[in-house]
């Protein structure tokens, strides 16, 4: 079966972001960008399924600016076979992305779509669930373990109280949580090889999807700053402060 893996280019997780002074958004000029960590986990899971003989072909997809090609090359270097860039400089919302992905799924007919559970920029945690809805497929979100079981997948999910196990009929959607796997670093030969792998470029209009935002950002602001606290010299001073100053114990 084919596996489709959507990936997103985001501000690197180590970067401390800054809000633009005119409050129009986040400062992205000269900021290090990387593949979204949850998307890297999704690529890794697909590659492992190919190594186990479960998957036959891995297609990486990204919806974003021309620089998202680098993100797709990362996925190709990790082991994806080919890539599709749906190029747009607009920031598409999860529902629009899900609609574009649905068109790609209709054409490519993968047996499984593996996505990150959320991106670390928008923090929406919506796209996988929305794609599952549009396709009428089952969804295994926040997965920490994925096992093939005949015509189904057995998914262990991270939930608020602990873990939950579901079976999902294939085809289905899986979204990855942190502990599903540890993504590999691409080796230099694989990075070189990735440059030769096919990368097709499309636009949202090719899929007839309108990506005009339905939720408009009016303003972006800094969170309230915590004022700097004090250092206490020992436990007894700490307990004293908590009892008599903060009055929390």
């Amino acid at each position: 079966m084919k596996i489709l893996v959507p990936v997103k280019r985001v501000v690197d997780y180590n970067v401390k972001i800054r809000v633009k002074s005119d409050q129009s958004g986040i400062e992205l000029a000269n900021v290090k960008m990387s593949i979204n960590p949850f998307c890297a986990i999704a690529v890794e899971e697909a590659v492992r399924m190919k190594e186990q003989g479960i998957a036959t072909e891995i297609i990486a997809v990204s919806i974003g600016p021309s620089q998202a090609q680098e993100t797709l090359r990362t996925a190709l270097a990790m082991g994806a076979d080919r890539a599709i860039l749906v190029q747009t400089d607009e920031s598409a919302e999860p529902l629009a992305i899900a609609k574009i992905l649905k068109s790609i799924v209709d054409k490519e007919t993968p047996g499984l779509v593996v996505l990150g559970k959320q991106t670390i920029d928008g923090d929406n945690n919506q796209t996988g669930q929305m794609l599952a809805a549009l396709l009428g497929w089952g969804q295994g979100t926040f997965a920490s373990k994925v096992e093939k079981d005949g015509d189904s997948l057995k998914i262990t999910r991270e939930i608020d109280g602990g873990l939950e196990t579901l079976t999902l009929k294939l085809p289905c959607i899986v979204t990855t949580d942190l502990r599903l796997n540890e993504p590999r670093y691409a080796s230099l030969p694989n990075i070189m090889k990735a440059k030769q792998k096919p990368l097709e470029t499309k636009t949202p209009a090719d899929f007839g999807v309108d990506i005009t935002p339905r939720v408009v950002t009016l303003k972006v602001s800094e969170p309230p700053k915590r004022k700097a606290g004090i250092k206490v010299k020992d436990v007894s001073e700490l307990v004293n402060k908590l009892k008599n100053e903060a009055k929390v114990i």
Partner: protein
Amino acid sequence: MPKVLLIAEHDNAKLKPATLNAMTAAKKLGDVDILVAGQGCAAVAEEAAKIDGAKKVLCADDAAYAHFLAENLAALVAKLGANYDYVLAASSTTGKNMLPRASALLDMQMISDVSGIENADTFVRPFYAGNAFATVQSKDKIKVMTVRTTAFDPTPATGGAATVEKVESAGDSGLSGFVGQQLTKSERPELTAARVVVSGGRGMGSGDNFKLIDALADKLDAAVGASRAAVDAGFVPNDYQVGQTGKVVAPELYIAVGISGAIQHLAGMKDSKVIVAINKDPDAPIFQVADYGLVQDLFVALPEFTKAI
């Protein structure tokens, strides 16, 4: 008045406290009906009917909802939600799993993790791990949103006298099946609702050493949390994780022990009223958000702290 449908969170026996926080957000928007979907959940529906301000409780009692499978629940929420101006759920793993699916079925762009309501169509939400807040305006007909529970005080659980109305099941999709759950059993308060949280990080060194955290937590009637590093290292289960992709907590007192303070962890706890950090590294970033910092070896400080209170 606009009409709001709030999806109750429960375990078929009892309402979860997160529902009361989400109710506070819902009441700001209009008249609130509460959907209780589950199996054998009549007692939960009765409990929901008593929530202050509830107009009507819709009870969908069917085997298809026994385990809150997203495929079945979203179909019901989309069907009922089509008649409302707002559809809300708490931003828990259940809400995050189900509501985007319902939103797509309704062809609405959902808003995740709402932490503030400016007016009928304008909301505030954190993104970039809470390092920025976006004020967003929805142009969609139905506003579908998950609500960050720490941003809204709970509505009183009593005082309401809503009618309970049975609603028909939207059926079983047959797409997914429930196999089992491994829930972490604890006598302690729930992490997201606790007045005090004591969290351990990589500095704890092992799962066994978490008993030092447990001892302090027992004294303070606190919940126990952890950083991602401690969960990844296998010291504690995943449901302990506080942070951008784990749980978001805002207790009266948060005690971070052996946690360096990566931005992803700070995202989950920096709205706590009082933060204490215990770490032997004086340069650990956690001290930049701590009200009281103690630079000391945690293996010395923790037992002493536990003894002193």
